């Protein structure tokens, strides 16, 4: 059949009446949620060590020593987990000409006036932003994190470098938390999105409204049953 | 026994010229009970103090041994800490890196705890009782002395010397041990007698 341009392997029309579209395979969803859980643990444990007023959060993990021990390991887990996601998603997150239009009309996006926007593939520019921001920040965090990982890499870098690393780690962490908030909020605000990562499917209307090119490509393939 | 300490401290910290910065000056005068001790518990509380002398060099620094248990009261005692004696005129409480670690000498892993014998040709020491060890020594001494004591020299002069057994005395034993050693060695006629002062 023809080359996929707007969809990933495994994306397909799940049922026709009503239309539901399979957006994420089970393995991808699991991958996402592992990543998400890691990130949440990291941001909670990281914030606990970031600001005294949040130190009480270490109690969630069984105290400061455990928190200090756990955080970097979860960081490594997140890194590899996200790496898998990255490998699955990076192609469809490459920028396309319509992204520019989408961004320039961000006001329409916020107002929910999507009919004014161009038709999109599987991801809009906002989602792509989150994807790339996450990718870059996670790399920054893992690199700076290893530099300050006292238990295993105490002498990896000099203390002046370590001071920069700890600052960069903090800044990147703030950025990734902001990105995370954006991601979560967008998923909630755009109703019908969450099920893509829970049940794996979205409604046809959701797909039509937000990712019409993606839907068109799947429909054009005529795939109406479970994947063979 | 004049073991009583003169608790006269040296008011002037020897030469540092630092007139006693006293506890009071540092705000430790009226110690109030702290609600919750944050610092490490002071480890010498309730230890037995004993005056002693560092056994290393001949500066003979005064030391205080802090032990767990009181020998004078007939108890078993174990050394927990050793520190310079601030009342001692020479060292004024100071100690060198050897003296400051004297506890490690007393409690060294290589301290001997039992008599041992190495038999001719053997590759190991084996334990032996004090009785057996001492009897063995006495027997060997008697036999060697009887066999090799030189009573007269070639000119017939009485010389009464024993050269086939030698004794090296220590450098850190007490005068009293030294005297008892001297008596024993000299009475037997040993002339191969020396101590660390030679080197």
């Amino acid at each position: 059949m023809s080359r996929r341009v707007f969809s990933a392997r495994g994306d397909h029309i799940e049922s026709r009446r009503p239309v539901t579209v399979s957006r994420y395979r089970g393995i991808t969803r699991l991958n996402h949620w592992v990543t998400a859980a890691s990130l949440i643990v990291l941001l909670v444990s990281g914030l606990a060590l970031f600001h005294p007023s949040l130190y009480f959060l270490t109690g969630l993990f069984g105290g400061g020593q455990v928190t200090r021990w756990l955080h970097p390991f979860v960081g490594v887990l997140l890194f590899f987990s996200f790496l898998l996601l990255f490998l699955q998603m990076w192609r469809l997150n490459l920028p396309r000409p319509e992204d520019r239009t989408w961004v320039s009309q961000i006001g329409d996006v916020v107002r929910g006036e999507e009919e004014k926007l161009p038709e999109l593939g599987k991801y809009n520019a906002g989602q792509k932003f989150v994807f790339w921001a996450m990718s870059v920040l996670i790399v920054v965090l893992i690199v700076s994190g290893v530099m300050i990982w006292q238990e295993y890499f105490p002498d990896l870098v000099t203390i002046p470098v370590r001071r920069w690393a700890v600052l960069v780690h903090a800044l990147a962490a703030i950025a990734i938390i902001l990105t995370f908030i954006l991601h979560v909020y967008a998923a909630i605000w755009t109703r019908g999105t969450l099920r893509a990562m829970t049940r794996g499917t979205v409604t046809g209307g959701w797909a039509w409204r937000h990712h019409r090119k993606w839907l068109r490509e799947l429909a054009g393939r005529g795939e109406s049953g479970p994947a063979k | 026994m004049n073991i009583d300490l003169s608790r006269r401290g040296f008011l002037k910290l020897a030469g540092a010229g630092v007139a006693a910065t006293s506890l009071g000056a540092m705000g430790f005068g009226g110690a109030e009970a702290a609600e919750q001790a944050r610092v490490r518990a002071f480890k010498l509380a309730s230890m037995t103090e004993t005056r002693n002398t560092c056994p290393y060099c001949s500066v003979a620094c005064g030391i205080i041994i802090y032990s767990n248990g009181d020998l004078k009261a007939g108890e078993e005692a174990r050394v927990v800490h050793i520190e310079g004696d601030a009342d001692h005129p020479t060292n004024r409480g100071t100690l060198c890196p050897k003296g400051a670690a004297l506890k490690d000498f007393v409690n060294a892993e290589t301290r001997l705890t039992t008599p041992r014998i190495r038999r001719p040709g053997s590759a190991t020491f084996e334990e032996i009782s004090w009785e057996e060890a001492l009897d063995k020594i006495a027997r060997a001494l008697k036999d060697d002395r009887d066999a090799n004591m030189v009573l007269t020299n070639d000119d017939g002069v009485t010389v009464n010397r024993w050269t086939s057994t030698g004794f090296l005395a220590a450098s850190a034993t007490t005068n009293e041990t030294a005297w008892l050693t001297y008596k024993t060695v000299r009475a037997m006629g040993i002339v191969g007698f020396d101590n660390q002062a030679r080197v």
Partner: protein
Amino acid sequence: MTNSWTDIKNTDLVVVMGGNAAEAHPCGFKWVTEAKAHRGAKLIVVDPRFTRTASVSDYYAPIRPGSDIVFLMALINWMIQNDKVQWEYVKAFTNAPFIVKEGFGWNDGLFTGYDPEKRDYDRSSWDYVLGEDGYAEVDPTLEHPRCVWNLLKEHVSRYTPELVEQVCGTPKDRFLKVAEMIGECSAPDKTMTSMYALGWTQHSKGSQNIRGMAMLQLILGNIGVRGGGMNALRGHSNIQGLTDIGLMSNLIPGYLNIPTEKEPDWQTYMSSRSFKPLRPGQTSYWQNYPKFMVSFMKAMWGDAATAENDWAYHYLPKLDVPTYDILRMFELMDAGKVNIYFCQGFNPLLAFPNRGKLTSALSKLKLLVVMDPLATETAHFWENHGEHNDVDTASIQTEVLELPSSCFAEDDGALVNSGRWLQWHWAAATPPGQAKHDTWIMAQIFLRVKKLYEDEGGVFPDPILNLTWDYADPDEPSPEELAKELNGRALEDVRDTADPAKVLTARGKQLLNFSQYRDDGTTMGACWIYAGCWNEEGNNMARRDNNDPDETGAYPNWAFAWPLNRRILYNRASADVQGRPWDPSRKLLEWDGQKWTGYDVPDIAPASRPEEVGPFIMNPEGVSRLFTRGMMRDGPFPTHMEPFESPIANVFNPEMRGNPVARVFASDAEQFATSDEFPFVATSYRLTEHFHYWTKHNRINAALQPEFFVEISRELAAEKGIQPGASVRVWSKRGEVRAKALVTGRLKPMQCGDKLVHVIGIPLHWGFMGAARKGWGPNSLTPFVGDANVETPEFKAFLVNIEPATGEAVS
């Protein structure tokens, strides 16, 4: 030490040469920093290495190991040339005015009377001209060409700053600066102290090194005064005590002597010992020798020593050689002539020279008995530790007994410090396991031997059977009982010699001091110089009053100092001929018209009139000796002698090797090397982090200095391609070691004439037992030869070679 540690604070100038006080005696060195801080005193260090002492010095001068006599004689020469002499002191308190016999002289590095066959001098010409009255002739004007002063002047004239530069490698300007600083101390109100240790003794002419400085100190008027003196910093906590008590081949407690074969009877023995005064009115304190000797014999053998049997003189061994010192014993052992050897708290395998020979010798013993708190290398000499002790265990037939003894923390008793203080200490801990006090061990050995003689009879059992052993518990005599024997006790009432009706000390009581010792058998006392340590006033060694009137540093009521609680020896010399202190601000004693008063116990009879009685009462001259007559085997003045292994020929006599009268055993002579094969000078020493071979058993000390290393200059490292921290192989004609290389700017090559001399420093703290990493001591390399007078081995100057180590193994 003539003075005490605390007295050093009174000095104006400290000269550390032949020692490294900051490193080896840090807490004693405190008093140097005190003198610096409070008197503005200066510190000079003369040493082959820039030591830790040098790091806090005001002036440092390098010197080639083994060339100290040249430096010292040149200092004396400079003082004489520049009139830096304390003239009144020299004239009145030294033998400078004494006239010397015509026959005495010096030529080609040798004094008159040398016999190369015997390797000995005929010393008969080295003496004073005696008048018909039996007194030595003197010329108080010092004009007589044969007076000691003029002979000395001539003797030292050869030692110029140029010679110093050529022989010692000390730059001339450095020498001159040192001389200037020292010269200031010839003023009566300036004093200098000499602090030395094994850097001077461990040479084949060690005694002469010390003589050299003692002479300089006399010329500057620095003996007997506060802040002055000759201060030998003794190495171990009680080698002073063990020497005082005579635990040496030829000694009896209190520096009396074991007789020789030439003294078959008491009268002969005594005749050469109670010296008559050599000048009118002098004390010549050794005239009391019989009192000390008889009291000693009574302490040993009690009722068995009687006037009739010459105090059991025949119980004493008579020596056929000067001493059966350690070196001789190991020589005999190696020849198979020793069967049993005891090591009580002593580790000869690492402490004596030429370890290969020591191992060979120990392997020929039948029985080796080691009593020690720690597992020593000596006790384990038969155990194979790979390259660190590569012996053939199975072939060694020596039986070894290792007996666990207690340590300082576990016994009561006294130790004698370098300043002659007898300080009592108390046990604080229980000995571990079955470890026992040395007193118990010695008593057990003795009682068992005695029992065998009682039961079986045997050869000459009398001195054993009659040895005094009246202790409450014969199995373990108490320290108190033994200390009291050392002090001495009245066997009969001791009466005043001037007034026989007056009982000074009643029968059975402790003697007050040695003035109560008697030669008629009515007193016993083991060690006369200790008398007073435990008299009827109690245990004076346990005194703890640290009051110091006027802060002189004397601490007269702290413990007990021998003799007679005297803190500074020769202290009468602190005052001028009339008895006025040389420096009123540093008064020690003064003559009040009737008697001597002051801060110390006078080293003279308290009522001796100053103009009549000389201050050096032990000498028959009454004065000190710049010229030692025949008392030293290698010369009445120090003369330059190279070490036995030297890169440079003796500048006075290229044919002369080492000390011409030092005893050398034939097999050892073969093992002396030349600089063709072994071009580098090595010297051995202690580091501050360790105490000999003991502290390597301690975790903390092992951590502070964990592994054997040698120190070399950057220049030598570059020449040999040695990287800092790399392994090197160092070898001499007698053995080899592997060590880490510590490359430093603290050692610099020295230009001695046309020869560039590199020095390699070899610290001595490692072996194959204990907590530190396994290593070697310098004694794997050092030559088996000792000082001509006292047989202290030449550990401070010998020849080695060095190269980067290839691989770990050393054969």
